[in-house]
């Protein structure tokens, strides 16, 4: 596991801020007034038990879903007020999204999967593939460029997904349990690659996890519990589990 690097100074400007987010799915209240700030270049872990509302928070912050109440601000724009087209544009250009699995197109090769956001941005296929190849190289999966997701290991797929999320040079990467389906070694490889690249490019990362070891890669940790964010500690998940059991 990597050692923690210095946190951004408290004066760093907020890249994304959320205030009083509420979101319900039917009778289930996933978010109950969550507030959060993600600073430029910061790696922030949101830890918490399953069903605590972590993924919903990520979906709201990245504009995938609109909160029922509350405000999410990015670059001076309120995401809730933006039309769907502009939100999609933001997710293609400024945000990168990584899920536990399922984000790669199963029929495309790793190279074409990574090239896809560039093609969507209007780049020609040749240069897009060249750039995608460089990102695969950076994540150590250049040798898998011609393989399809079903032909790769989970760790390789996740590194391809990271390359895809970062290929457009986003300002923020939203990672929802990126190592949730991986073994310890593959998880470490994925996290090391993510953290290293994010530091190098000063990309902010919002990391959703229920794994204390993964959360330890972050500069700052917060704990989500029953739809509300609480301040973090060194063993956030363990404490949360103990609190629930107690």
């Amino acid at each position, binding site marked *: 596991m990597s050692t923690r690097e210095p946190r951004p100074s408290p004066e760093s400007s907020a890249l994304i801020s959320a205030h009083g987010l509420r979101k319900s799915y039917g009778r289930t209240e996933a978010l109950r007034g969550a507030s959060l700030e993600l600073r430029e270049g910061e790696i922030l872990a949101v830890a918490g038990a399953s069903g605590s509302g972590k993924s919903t928070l990520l979906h709201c912050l990245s504009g995938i879903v609109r909160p029922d109440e509350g405000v999410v601000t990015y670059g001076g724009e309120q995401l809730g007020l933006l039309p769907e087209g502009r939100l*999609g*544009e933001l997710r293609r250009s400024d945000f990168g*999204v990584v899920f536990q699995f399922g984000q790669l197109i199963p029929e495309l090769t790793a190279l074409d999967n990574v090239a896809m*956001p560039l093609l969507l941005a209007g780049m020609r*296929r040749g240069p897009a593939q060249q750039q995608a190849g460089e990102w695969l190289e950076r994540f150590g999966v250049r040798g898998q460029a011609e393989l399809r997701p079903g032909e790769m290991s989970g760790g390789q797929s996740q590194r391809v997904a990271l390359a895809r999320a970062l290929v457009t040079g986003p300002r923020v990467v939203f990672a929802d349990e990126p190592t949730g389906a991986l073994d310890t070694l593959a998880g470490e490889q994925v996290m090391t690659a993510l953290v290293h690249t994010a530091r190098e490019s000063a990309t902010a990362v919002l990391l959703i996890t229920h794994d204390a070891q993964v959360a330890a890669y972050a500069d700052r940790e917060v704990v989500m519990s029953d739809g509300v964010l609480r301040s973090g500690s060194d063993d956030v998940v363990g404490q949360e589990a103990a609190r629930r059991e107690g």
Partner: protein
Amino acid sequence: MKADIRIAWILARGSERREWWRASLTLIGALLATGSALAAVTVAAVSGQVSLPYAHGLLDRPGERAGVVFTLVLLLVPVLGFLGQCARIGAVHRYRRMAGLRLAGASPGQVRRIAAAESAIACLAGSSAGLALFLGLLALTGHTPRPVAWAGLVAVVVAVPVAAALVSALALRHVVAAPLEYARRTVPSAGRRAALGFLIAATSIALSALLLLFPVGRRVTPPVLLVLALVLLTGAGAIWAAGASAAFIGRTLTRRARRPAVLIAASRLAHDPWAAARTHAALLLVTVVAVGFVGVRAVLLDTLTDSARPMSLAFYTTGIDLAGSAVLVALAISACALAVGTAESLATRRRGLAAQAAAGVPHRVLAEAVLLETALPLAPALLLAGLGGTVVYVGYAMIVVTASVPLLPLLVPVAVLVLCLLAAATSLPLLRRAVNPAELRFT
């Protein structure tokens, strides 16, 4: 058996909404299949020269009746294809469920019986409804079939669900043999079935040839076997051609695509070209028949009008229109099968689609890819099918030495392509639901 049926019922009740779609569409397919088969049996049971008060005398003579029976039996081909397509709705999910049952300790026989019960119940309901409607129609027309026909009617009503049960049990053979594989992942369809069809057809043709050369007894009818073998060969050939051309187009365009939607569609075609091969093959065969039919109809009517025999014109037009109705029904059923297949494909990969949309892939690109998956392999294939049909009717026009060759049939492939795109487009609302971020909440 009672326990198996109970489990099948519990599984069906606990299933997603598409299971009910599958049951409903299977019921409709069984109803149509039963209707066609009952009509064929009833007409076939009439013997000798009769005088029936409908169809302008088309059913009066044995020769024309045989043609009507043949048309109704041919109509069963797309109907059964549609039924097969309905059975594939939710197949991935269902196969996983059955694999799960096997892993939980169910015997191969139990799994087969449960799967058979799921299909057979819907088919039995459909065939019973078909029988009820048919009897109602008979009562309205005042026609009472001969006693021998009743046995045939009962046989049809029983045969449809039994056949569905057997096909369902047969389709599960890989799940039964290797449940773990199905519980973990999907297995792309392969072209082996088309090759098997080829093999059976070739064997049948060889057998027919042998029987023609060395007749054994009087009951053997090699021409019938030969016709069936040729139909099978044509079907298998069309499926193989559809799958192989989709693979070629997919591979070629994957290398050359510049636009995201084309790349996604072409890659899907290259990855699993056999997924829609049966439906596409049915559409191609129907197009050949439709182009040929429209052309032959125009030439025939032209010739009949010129021969100035107005008394017999109604007789001919009734027969032609009956055949035309059969072609239209076959086209509609094939288009429905295409719509069902497209919707099923979207439903199967909705979580991946939701992830794509969440990552910023525009809905427009995904929708375009869905339509291109239909258009890319079908456009050139329909052009060829149109040429095939043109050869048929131009050949006929040359035989009857008509003055003009109609051009209207050339529009048929274009109309079929538009119909196919419309059929595929019916699944676009489902795509909009599939890319709903709520899908990301479920694994």
